[in-house]
């Protein structure tokens, strides 16, 4: 029976010749990820249930990124709990302040995720690694505890929606605009329980950073995972990072899809998601003049080097508008260092922005840029739910780094072409 790319990876990891949509399977996992928010819950659950050992000390990643560097005593205690667990079990991939980055930028960079692998993470944006042609999905702490203890997880095999990308994108259009446009089209539950498989000639147009952004937000359409085919760009990205055998899977030509959408990249314009759902999308040129108090450029969606470069290109020689607090967060130490080497840091600081060490901080209203009542932020993060970045009357507009940088300069939400 014909299978989608996702189904092939699941079948292989379940030791089955084939699987079909709706089937319940138990699969072996290649990596289990947790952070400083979900890790402590998983650790406590695992120990409470009487599991004394982890399945493989090399296949667990613990990343202290959400409330780290610790924002308060309680957060420090949570990191301490993870740190002690990592020490007790001799966990190879424990990333603390100094080595850590935002998990979904960090793991691919460190070569811990690769094409054809099956990754679960106690963080909803674990779906990011689909950009590499892996099956990766977010789970809760109890699933993660089971994964750390047994090396297995249960899944209901998903059906899929196919997105055929065609055409060439215009300058300043990024993966973020593409995924926001798609979520606007299908809604926040448009892909519920299903895979989003991205194919077509347009894929070659997209950089790896574009693909990471797109898969990162598959969860924002309710999807179980997002996935891209593996091409020369994928192989180039993994070269020097992944030092183990890589298996490449392709969807069968006659695989069944619930729905097929064609997305012509040449028709896309800079896109934002208005409060309070990622599906409330508009092209920037459809918006009234919406003034902002803050601009955040970073996160697991958009804290990679290309995001930093495009922000710097727009901010170079400009200054952010008075009253717009502009917070730039390179997602990892590697990205941070690259920003220094390329002179981007100087551009950011001269433009009146601040640059933070890697953290998820403001994205989930943790720290490093919380909004007061009635305040408004443009942000390259992934969610604009009520109270997501601070007070329940504050507002978050989601956008690409190019739109966020342009808006910071002008003081209102605008397209890069509007920067004077």
């Amino acid at each position, binding site marked *: 029976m014909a299978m989608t790319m996702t189904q092939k990876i699941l079948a292989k990891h379940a030791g089955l010749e084939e699987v079909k949509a709706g089937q319940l399977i138990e699969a072996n996992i290649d990596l289990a990820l947790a952070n400083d*928010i979900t890790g402590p819950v998983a650790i406590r659950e695992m120990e409470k249930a009487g599991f004394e050992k982890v399945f493989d000390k090399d296949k667990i990643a613990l990343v202290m990124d959400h409330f780290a560097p610790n924002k308060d005593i*309680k957060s420090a205690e949570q990191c301490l709990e993870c740190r002690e667990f990592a020490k007790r079990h001799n966990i190879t991939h424990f990333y603390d302040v100094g080595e850590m980055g935002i998990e979904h930028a960090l793991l691919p960079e460190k070569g811990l995720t690769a094409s054809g692998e099956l990754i679960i993470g106690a963080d909803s944006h674990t779906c990011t690694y689909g950009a590499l042609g892996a099956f990766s999905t977010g789970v809760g702490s109890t*699933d993660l505890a089971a994964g750390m203890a047994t090396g297995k997880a249960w899944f209901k095999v998903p059906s899929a929606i196919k997105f055929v990308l065609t055409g060439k994108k215009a300058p300043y259009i990024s993966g973020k605009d593409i995924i926001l446009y798609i979520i606007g089209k299908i809604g926040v539950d448009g892909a519920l329980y299903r895979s989003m498989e991205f194919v077509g000639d347009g894929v070659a147009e997209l950089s790896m950073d574009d693909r990471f952004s797109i898969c990162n937000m598959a969860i924002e359409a309710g999807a179980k995972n997002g996935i891209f085919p593996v091409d020369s760009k994928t192989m180039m990205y993994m070269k020097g990072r992944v030092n183990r055998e890589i298996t490449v899977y392709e969807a069968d030509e006659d695989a069944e899809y619930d729905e097929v959408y064609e997305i012509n990249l040449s028709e896309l314009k800079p896109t934002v998601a208005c409060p309070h759902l990622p599906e409330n999308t508009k092209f920037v040129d459809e918006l009234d003049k919406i003034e902002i108090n803050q601009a955040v450029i970073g996160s697991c969606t958009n804290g990679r080097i290309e995001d930093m470069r495009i922000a710097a290109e727009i901010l170079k020689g400009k200054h952010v508008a008075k009253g717009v607090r502009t917070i730039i967060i390179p997602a990892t130490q590697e990205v941070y260092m690259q920003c220094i080497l390329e002179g981007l840091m100087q551009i950011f600081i001269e433009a009146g922005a601040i640059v933070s060490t890697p953290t998820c901080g403001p994205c989930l209203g*943790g720290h490093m840029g919380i909004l007061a009542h009635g305040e408004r932020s443009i942000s390259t993060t992934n969610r604009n*739910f009520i*109270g997501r970045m601070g007070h329940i009357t504050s507002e978050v507009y989601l956008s690409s780094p190019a739109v966020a940088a342009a808006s910071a300069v002008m003081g209102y939400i605008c397209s890069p072409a509007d920067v004077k």
Partner: protein
Amino acid sequence: MIAKGRVFKYGDNVDTDVIIPARYLNIADPKELATHAMEDIDDTFVSRVQDGDIIVATKNFGCGSSREHAPLVIKENNVSCVIASSFARIFYRNAINIGLPILECEEAANDIMEGDIVSVDFDTGIIHNETKNKEYKAVAFPPFIQSIIKAGGLLKSLKEREG
């Protein structure tokens, strides 16, 4: 097993950030965490909720983050069951894994209103709206998921298998 309680009714896309805002995710004690349940969508929830009460919502309940704290704070408030037209997938897994009963039933989710008294028979999936004197039938769980629920959660079911 039968649950019975008064209904708290919410709409579409109730996200995990309103069920338990991230600003409280540094709290380790479930009891303390539970005092902030539903705070950003209904700041009277915690003061009004009684043991056995039921949450009813329409589509995509629990969308957003993977935080298990979300089903946990609902369970800690002794809510007996969540009924929705559909659940976000990670919330769905988490609820089953920690033993918070959930039921998918579009008709019930649309028909039941705030304050209705509802009873649920988990063995049959029959939802009875005592206020309106109407009955609805929820989607049955596959046997594998039923076995997790019966064991009292995922880790207990794995331990049983290991045992």
